[in-house]
């Protein structure tokens, strides 16, 4: 049985609606904690800013494009997302190990942990899709990017100097190639 959304779903709705009042509330509650954690673990204020912004954008994207429903409180969820993102970044940069590798930033429930993992998994999938996209030819990349801009497809065809029929055919072929790459693990 699927769980009903947590009352903190309101934060996701506010992010999608670009509600500056609630976004300010989120910054007030969480920005300082994330900054302290990152400074304490070999990062800078700029790193903290990037991690916090990227995390909020990830949550926003998932809420807007993937209908993410929150089943846990928002604050520990966002903090955990930021923390995991920073730990991954540290691994990538191969810098000093984290000062504290346990979950000392906050004590989180199972739901929060699962939700943060799901978000991270979806981000990884998106990275895979982007890698496949990068492997396509230039014409395919151009057609896919332009056709996703939300403009009328007839107009996109005109801009690209092709017929509407060709655009649909070519986009189908390009997307099918991309999906095959993803399914064959690139």
């Amino acid at each position: 049985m699927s769980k009903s959304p947590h009352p903190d779903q309101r934060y996701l709705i506010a992010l999608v609606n670009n509600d500056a009042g609630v976004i300010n509330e989120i910054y007030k509650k969480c920005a300082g904690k994330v900054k302290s954690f990152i400074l304490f673990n070999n990062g800078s204020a700029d790193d903290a800013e990037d991690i916090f912004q990227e995390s909020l954008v990830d949550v926003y994207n998932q809420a807007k494009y993937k209908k993410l429903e929150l089943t846990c409180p928002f604050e520990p969820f966002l903090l955990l997302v930021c923390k995991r993102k920073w730990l991954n970044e540290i691994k990538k940069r191969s810098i000093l190990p984290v000062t504290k590798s346990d979950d000392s930033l906050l004590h989180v429930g199972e739901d929060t942990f699962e939700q943060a993992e799901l978000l991270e998994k979806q981000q990884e999938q998106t990275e895979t899709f982007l890698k496949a996209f990068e492997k396509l030819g230039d014409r395919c990349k151009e057609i896919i990017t332009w056709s996703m801009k939300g403009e009328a497809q007839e107009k996109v065809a005109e801009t690209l100097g092709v017929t509407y029929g060709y655009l649909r055919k070519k986009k189908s072929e390009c997307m099918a190639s991309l999906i095959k790459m993803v399914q064959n693990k690139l």
Partner: protein
Amino acid sequence: MTDDKILLTARYVEGDMDAIERAGYETQMENDADLQQHLIDYNYIHESLKMKLAPDDADLLFRDTLSKFNSEYFHPQQVAKTISLKPYVKWLSGIAAVLFLGLLIWAPWRMSLYESFAGNNQMTVAERGAEKETNLDKAAAFYNVKDYKSAKILLEKEHVAQPENAMVNYYYGKTLLETQQIGEGRVMLNGVYNGQSVFKYDAAYAVAMSYLKADNKDACRIWLQKIPAGTAHFEQAKALLEKL
């Protein structure tokens, strides 16, 4: 077989099927779990790519909001607060703080790219010849000496009188940007971009420049990519994209 189904699904979603093929696909899908899964996967991958490759205006405005709060919460202004300083040192620290603040606003290290690519910023009024100087002529005169505040007042009146005039809206949008009404300016220019006037891609370039000025390179890149080859700003947009 799987490959065929993937292509078939892509063609179905992208509308590359005639009515008979379409109906056939839908009938087949009713009893074909693979095909149903392919359709779910297709839509999922498509949406995932869309959010990365082609964020819409609302996405850009959201990032704008975050940028504003980022400065406030991650880089609060470092104004020296020392209680036991002698008065003249207090004055010096006050002056230093003002200079520091001015430097932050001016931000020459971030403006260099902007200055290089902002280009010639002149307003030309095409319809001349009238005996009496029009509001547009006056606005252009103010605009061309960079008195954007005065130009904006006149252009606002013109915009109210002729809301569909793309030229008026374009320059009005630019004066809004120049007078720090960034959000309103972008909305105005976005309207011009969504139209079909000769100012369409000038508007896209102006919006891109506004993001460059705000150091929002992602959004700047997105707007530059909207400018197609053969239009006035294409070469500049291409060069700037390479630098970003």
